[in-house]
């Protein structure tokens, strides 16, 4: 059962061949037996999951089941779950039990899905390797052969690893600079970052408010569509989300791709890309041509400024968002504070990890008097130039395709000595967050036995088109079904 997709499990439950309680037991047993190797879960909610599964079985017996009823999944530990620890991968929130549900959490609850627990992540979503979590690094289920441990990517490394290891068929995740797409690529799973404003951020612990977006991760495009049906939609409690109708993302998965116009941004195929990686991506694009798509080269002239702009904007917004962690109302508090300033400065020094502190300091600097215009304002202007590049490209083509990462999963510890080396992991993903457009990572092959992903970028609110394109590709390829040894 653990190799089945959400869609398949839903049909198994519907047919009565298995109950949700039995299915939930199977996944919980797998987590107990296997997760020690991966550390993909921070909290496993065994009792609650079994109780929810029992309720789901009762709903089904009463004829009230729908597609997600009784299907197991997990939440990235950035979504507030009422009564269940929500740590954001940090010591600062290690003891935080939210008294409310995020909208995304509430939506999955209402859909009848069974949450098995909270997945591991880089601290406060800042990272590309899941090595900065207070709860320990996550190990990629791929590449374990020769005794090396590889990163699953980040920040949604726990969600990606758990899906790749078949501990859960689907998991929620978030993407601020690539944190869904990059781990999806490194773990050989399928992930989607929706358009900014498509999914409510209420109850999703904030990192960079103009960039953060909750999204989906599973093995198939179809499952991502099923997840997005639950997650997308207007929420009056999130003032940045958009009031726009949500289509049924599964209804258009089988539209033929004939005539789809694909653009390949030349800046993402420079000589910095390894030939092996480029080959896998170009092979994927050829499959699309066989399906009837046309391909042309396009340009994103300001793409090379994306990382610089991001590493002003994201830390600046993070410094504002993380100022709420002060030891007063919730979360970590230092012992024996001698005065208010000591309470603040020591709580924050002790509660935050190194990368988080670095980014808060950079962000504070960028926003401080005398630097605001040169840094934050300048970066926001460059952001508009980057956005304009995408708008221009989408006048000529329907989707853009590119690699997701410069290379497959690297070994733990390889990139931790210099923060900037790690930042360059996001070179292909970051401009998408600055522009706010939707994008997916789809398993597209292997390099040195490790999975690599194809990035598909769409115009605003064209998630249905992306999912359709990914689904059609998954009908003629089987990269997404490969299992780690």
């Amino acid at each position: 059962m653990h190799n089945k997709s959400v869609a398949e499990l839903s049909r198994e439950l519907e047919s009565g061949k298995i109950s949700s309680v039995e299915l939930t037991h199977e996944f919980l047993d797998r987590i107990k037996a296997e997760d020690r190797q991966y550390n993909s879960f921070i909290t496993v909610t065994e009792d609650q999951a079994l109780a929810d599964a029992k309720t789901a079985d009762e709903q089904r017996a009463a004829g009230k089941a729908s597609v997600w009823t009784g299907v197991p999944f997990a939440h990235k530990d950035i979504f507030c779950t009422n009564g269940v620890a929500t740590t954001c991968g940090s010591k600062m929130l290690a003891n935080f039990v939210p008294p409310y549900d995020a909208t995304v959490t509430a939506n999955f609850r209402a859909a009848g899905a069974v949450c098995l627990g909270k997945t591991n992540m880089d601290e406060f979503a800042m990272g590309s390797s899941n090595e900065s979590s207070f709860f320990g690094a996550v190990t990629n289920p791929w590449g374990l052969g020769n005794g090396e441990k590889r990163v699953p990517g980040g920040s949604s490394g726990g969600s990606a690893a758990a899906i790749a290891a078949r501990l859960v068929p689907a998991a929620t995740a978030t993407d601020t600079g690539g944190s869904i797409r990059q781990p999806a690529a490194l773990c050989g799973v399928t992930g989607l970052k929706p358009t900014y404003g498509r999914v409510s951020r209420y109850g999703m612990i904030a990192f960079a408010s103009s960039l953060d977006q909750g999204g989906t991760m599973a093995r198939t495009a179809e499952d991502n569509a099923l997840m997005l049906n639950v997650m997308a939609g207007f929420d009056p409690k999130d003032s940045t989300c958009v009031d726009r109708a949500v289509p049924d993302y599964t209804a258009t998965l089988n539209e033929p791709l004939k005539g789809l116009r694909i653009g390949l941004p030349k800046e993402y195929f420079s000589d910095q890309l390894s030939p092996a990686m480029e080959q896998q991506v170009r092979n994927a694009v050829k499959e699309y041509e066989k399906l009837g798509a046309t391909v042309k080269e396009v340009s994103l002239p300001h793409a090379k400024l994306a990382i610089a702009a991001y590493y002003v904007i994201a830390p600046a917004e993070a410094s504002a968002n993380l100022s709420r962690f002060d030891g007063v109302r919730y979360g970590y508090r230092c012992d024996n504070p001698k005065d208010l300033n000591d309470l603040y400065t020591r709580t924050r020094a002790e509660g935050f990890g190194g990368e988080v502190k670095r980014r808060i300091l950079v962000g504070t600097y960028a926003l401080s008097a005398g630097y605001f215009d040169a840094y934050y304002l300048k970066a926001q202007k460059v952001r508009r130039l980057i956005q304009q590049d995408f708008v221009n490209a989408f006048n000529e083509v329907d989707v853009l395709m590119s690699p997701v990462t410069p290379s497959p999963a690297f070994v733990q510890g390889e990139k931790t000595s210099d923060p900037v080396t790690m930042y360059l992991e996001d070179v292909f993903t970051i401009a998408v967050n600055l522009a706010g457009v939707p994008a997916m990572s789809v398993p597209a092959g292997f390099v040195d036995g490790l999975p690599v992903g194809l990035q598909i970028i769409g115009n605003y609110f064209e998630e249905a088109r992306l999912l359709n394109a990914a689904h059609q590709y998954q009908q003629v390829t089987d990269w997404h079904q490969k299992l780690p040894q």
Partner: protein
Amino acid sequence: MTISREDIEKVAVLARIRLDEEQIPALENDLGNILSLVDQLSAADTNNVEPLAHPLDAVQRLRADEVTETNQREAFQAIAPATESGLYLVPRVIE
């Protein structure tokens, strides 16, 4: 691009994060590297370009000025480190 020790200390005060002496050299190095990365922005021509704050240029939605929330103080304060009579306790501020 280098960031001075004074700037780091000043920023740490603004950010309310205590820094120990041993941490400063690594921070000078790491923050300097990050700011060098960021300096690439100065080469961009942004004359007559409006800053982009929200990807869709959305504006703040307004709603009627009516009370819609219920008071959940007890639930919210149940997870606080220290409270008394509905107040959050912190070390003495005023002598």
